[in-house]
């Protein structure tokens, strides 16, 4: 029986410059933030990031880690616009962008997870998503309808990171909140060897059903290569029902985007040490 437990830094050490990484969660909800912080600590660069974007995007852009962003939106939910992402866009500092309809993003991950080259959809047709992404092509239905559809290409990932509520040491994991988001598809779209789950708590396998029904078991060990125990690992995003979004902290993070000095102070206070240093700094308030 393989014990897949590892640390955030060990997981990030499997990555290389220029890789395509998928980040689970949605907006400012159940983001694998301790993994994002580990990437911030690493020397990695030129990443392609695929995400339903929240503060993962803001932080990685502010650190200059992103060469290409594949996304449908970037938002902090309770703060509609992500200020660090806005700065990155408004200063033209993200070299390549692939802005897609939210459903196209799902379809691309799903196609990759099914090993299909593309999946057909109507979402995106007629909008500027087509003009802004000239690599997108259409396909004609071979049946009597003959309809022309958008062929959403597979979004194949080199690595995926998701944060769940509970996991066992082998990679079975449960979501206890209201929405799985697309975490299973991020894991499915990623190359075996670099599919990582962080969890609030690692529990014995026999305890996985103690806090939820079998319907919560959407991530199974065949989808996972590494498991990281990360209490408050989604902080400051929400991780229901373990904790809500830390709105006070999120506001401080957003406010720190006003100028370079404010951001430097925030960075020094929270982001220059280990994950433990971060959690202790948050606890100190």
């Amino acid at each position, binding site marked *: 029986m393989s014990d897949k437990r590892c640390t955030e830094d060990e997981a990030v050490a499997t990555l290389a410059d220029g890789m395509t990484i998928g980040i689970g969660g949605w907006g400012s909800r159940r983001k694998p933030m301790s993994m994002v912080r580990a990437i911030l600590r690493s020397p990695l660069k030129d990443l392609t990031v695929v995400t339903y974007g929240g503060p993962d995007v803001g932080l990685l852009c502010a650190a200059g880690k992103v060469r290409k962003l594949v996304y*449908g939106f970037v938002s902090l939910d309770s703060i509609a616009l992500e200020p660090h992402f806005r700065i990155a866009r408004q*200063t033209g500092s993200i070299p390549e962008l692939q802005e897609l309809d939210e459903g196209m993003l799902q379809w691309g991950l799903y196609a990759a997870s099914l090993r299909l080259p593309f999946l057909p959809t*109507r979402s995106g047709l007629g909008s500027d998503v087509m003009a802004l992404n000239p690599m997108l092509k259409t396909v004609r239905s071979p049946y009597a309808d003959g309809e022309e559809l958008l062929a959403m290409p597979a979004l194949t990932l080199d690595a995926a990171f998701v944060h769940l509520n509970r996991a066992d040491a082998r990679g079975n994991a449960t979501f206890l909140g209201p929405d799985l988001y697309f975490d299973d598809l991020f894991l499915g779209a990623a190359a075996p060897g670099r599919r990582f789950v962080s969890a609030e708590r690692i529990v014995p396998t026999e305890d996985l059903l103690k806090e939820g029904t079998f319907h919560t078991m959407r991530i199974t060990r065949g989808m996972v290569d590494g498991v990281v125990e990360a209490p408050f690992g989604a902080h400051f995003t929400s991780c229901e029902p373990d904790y809500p979004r830390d709105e006070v902290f999120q506001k401080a993070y957003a406010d720190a985007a006003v100028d370079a000095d404010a951001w430097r102070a925030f960075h020094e206070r929270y982001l220059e040490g280990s994950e433990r240093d971060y959690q202790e700094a948050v606890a100190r308030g």
Partner: protein
Amino acid sequence: MAEPAGTGAATRADVCAVAIAEAFRGDGEIFASGMGTLPMLGARLARATFEPDLLVSDGEAFYVAGDLPLGSDDKVIEGWIPFRSVFDTLWAGRRHVVMGASQLDAEGNQNISNIGPWARPSAQLLGVRGAPGNTVNHTTSYWVPNHSTRVFVPQVDVVCGLGYRRAAEAGAWIDAHHEIRRVVTNKAVLDFNGPDHRCRLLSVHPGVTVEEVVEATGFELVTDGVTTTREPTAEEQAALGRLDPAGLRHKEVRA
């Protein structure tokens, strides 16, 4: 329309909520999805009064039965609607969404992505989100809390939601399923059912003039037969009190 059943006590926000609710009239048993305070209130108001079969959500992941006040978590869950099911529902066409619009143009194209040149926008906004998929799959309406020439522009900078010309050019299926039902603003109610799908001013809210709306719109409007937006009935006014006891609607629309 005069205000035959009006109570006379309605605020502008009340009138807007009723106008958004009206956009859902006749929709039956589909997902009435409202993005933001007034759209969510409008959907719940429609369901609480004249469109009782609508499905409305808590804005997170659940369909709720009965009246759920804005900001309240005291809900009766009648179904589960995580994002994946939202996508399934919208691709199946069993949904009518009321979205925001940072820009809306003469053809009905909507922009929530960014303002200015794509490579280096003057203002980065949300991204296209679900607007491309929403508008090709089912009925869409828009809520604009600040009717002005900044929002109503001749041509949007990024086409997120499709207007009528784009939909027609995207193929027969999309053309047949695309509909911009209504645009409700803090001043007026509009649609795109003028000649050649030109934008038409349907009604101005009580206290607003047609000239004021024309002035605040950056393209030409069809202004034949403009009426006055109706005020809430007594039943609707009571429902608004139940559904928004804290008066959050008045923070969004102050007039």
